[in-house]
């Protein structure tokens, strides 16, 4: 190591730290696209809107329960929902109701909803 000048070692060391800092910042930018992708794919894959829409359609069905029963269309509309869900949404859907019960002074019907699209399964019993 003869004739080598050892001045400025702190400057060299700080230069190294700055380089490492920049390296980690670049790593964070590099990962950001991947983070956005996994989030977006998670949102796209989870059928939140499908399930909400199915629930509101089933509630529409029970809103119209009386007229549909009078005209004899209850089974038809139920079959529409079940078969179109399978054909167009790739989802196994089934729903049924029990006899109306007294819930806090109101006569409500327990409605059980089943939804399964191969990835997400959803079951609930709601008094409607």
């Amino acid at each position, binding site marked *: *190591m003869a004739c*080598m000048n*050892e001045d400025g*070692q702190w400057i*060299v*060391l700080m230069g*190294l730290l700055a*380089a490492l800092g920049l*390296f980690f910042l670049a790593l964070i930018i*590099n990962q950001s*696209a*991947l983070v*956005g*992708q996994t*989030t*977006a*794919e998670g*949102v*796209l894959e989870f059928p939140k*809107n*499908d399930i909400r*829409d*199915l629930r*509101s*359609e089933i509630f*529409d*069905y029970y809103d*119209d329960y009386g*007229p*549909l029963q009078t*005209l004899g*269309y209850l089974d*038809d*509309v139920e*079959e*529409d*929902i079940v*078969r*179109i869900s399978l*054909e*167009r*949404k790739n989802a196994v859907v089934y729903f049924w109701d029990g006899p109306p019960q007294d819930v806090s002074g109101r006569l409500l019907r327990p409605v059980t909803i089943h939804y399964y699209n191969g990835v997400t399964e959803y079951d609930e019993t709601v008094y409607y």
Partner: protein
Amino acid sequence: MVNDAGQLYTMEGVAAGVIMLLTVYIVISTTSIYTPGDTHIPDMQLEQLGSDVLAMMDTPDTNGTKSALETFVNADDDAGFESMFLSYCNAKASGAADDLHMSANVTYRDGNLIKEHQFLAPDNTWTGRESAVRVTRWVQLDSQPGRTTYAGARAQAVLVEVLLWRA
């Protein structure tokens, strides 16, 4: 005789080696380059926007009345449906309106068959290569004697499917 001169040069050499190794690792492990289009973020935003527009259209103004969506579908009114849908989804808080386009189908059950009715044909921006998203909404139609579209006069549940893309 071992002396301790030049320690910093050794450290520097080690640090340079580590940085080069990391660079080579990153270069080799980067087999593809991500662009925003690959990441499905715009698809997610478009799908949520379309679902929200359909939910708005399916909300009646007052309790007991029919929603705009149900009215359009029941009357097979494609022009009214298109104009309301596009005005909702192209609306922006400021600046020029957005440039989204759409087509729509209605799926219904006729006996043992699931059939599709083309509610609204795509406009001339459609080339088949768009990255379109599909949003859907259930609509329940009351029984209406004399109706010839969909499964006829009986009460029925139909699925409105909208294809939405940015031209």
